[in-house]
């Protein structure tokens, strides 16, 4: 009985392995680091996953940085100035 169970679980693993391979390759297409490499270079799944984490963290930092810059911009302009109205029309 344990044989049947182990056979079933390993076939379940195999199906999701194929799906995983496909998904991981989709991920690698999104990552600028990996997309820019030569097609012949093979990248391991764990490398793709690692690069994905790094990329997401990089995007988070960019959002943070852009929010900071925007906040500074709004601070640096005079409320009644022409520049302030430029920003306001862009944002609000």
């Amino acid at each position, binding site marked *: 009985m344990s044989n049947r169970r182990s056979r079933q679980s390993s076939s379940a693993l195999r199906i999701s392995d194929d799906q995983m391979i496909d998904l991981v390759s989709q991920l690698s297409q999104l990552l600028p680091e990996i997309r820019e490499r030569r097609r012949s270079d093979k990248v391991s799944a764990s490398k793709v996953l690692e690069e994905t984490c790094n990329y997401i963290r990089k995007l988070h930092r960019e959002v943070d940085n852009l*929010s900071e810059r925007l906040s500074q*911009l709004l601070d640096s302009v005079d409320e009644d100035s022409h520049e302030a109205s430029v920003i306001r029309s862009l944002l609000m």
Partner: protein
Amino acid sequence: MQPTSTMNEEFLKKWQMGLQMFRPSIDNASVSERKRAIKLSADVAMASLRKGTTCWSRALIQKTATEDNFLVRQMLSGIKEETLINKKLPKVMCHRKIVRRSKKILMRRKSRSAMEEVAAKAKKLVKRKTQGLRNVVPGGEFMSNNVLLIQETLDYIVSLQTQVNVMRSIVDAAEAGIER
């Protein structure tokens, strides 16, 4: 898979709407308060693009709601996502432990060839990296299924790219407008 111009436009509209809600206080706020408002509205705008269809977007909305419940309710008012704020995300973490334990038992019973050893090591490495992914994707801790995790990650990245692209365009344009 890339951010579309529709996504860009929708994000911008929703983000602007969120910022308008801060309008009265935005002039008197400190730089860090304003930054927080900008960032939170951007996150809600990004998450609401998915209209509650993905795990990460629901988790992000819930997380933002704990930081500023009023803002989230205002931005999502009229959309059914509002009900998602109170919805409890299912906790499936315990399942992973059970699966891991039974896999260990199965592994012990099999005799392992060298090939199997290598495959097992590779799987372990992948497991560690997917755990890293769970830490950066909102709601990742609830995605015990690796296939789901990667599907969510793909969508999350495209959404993040939208957010970054639009924000960057606005900030660049604003900076250029001021320098003149």
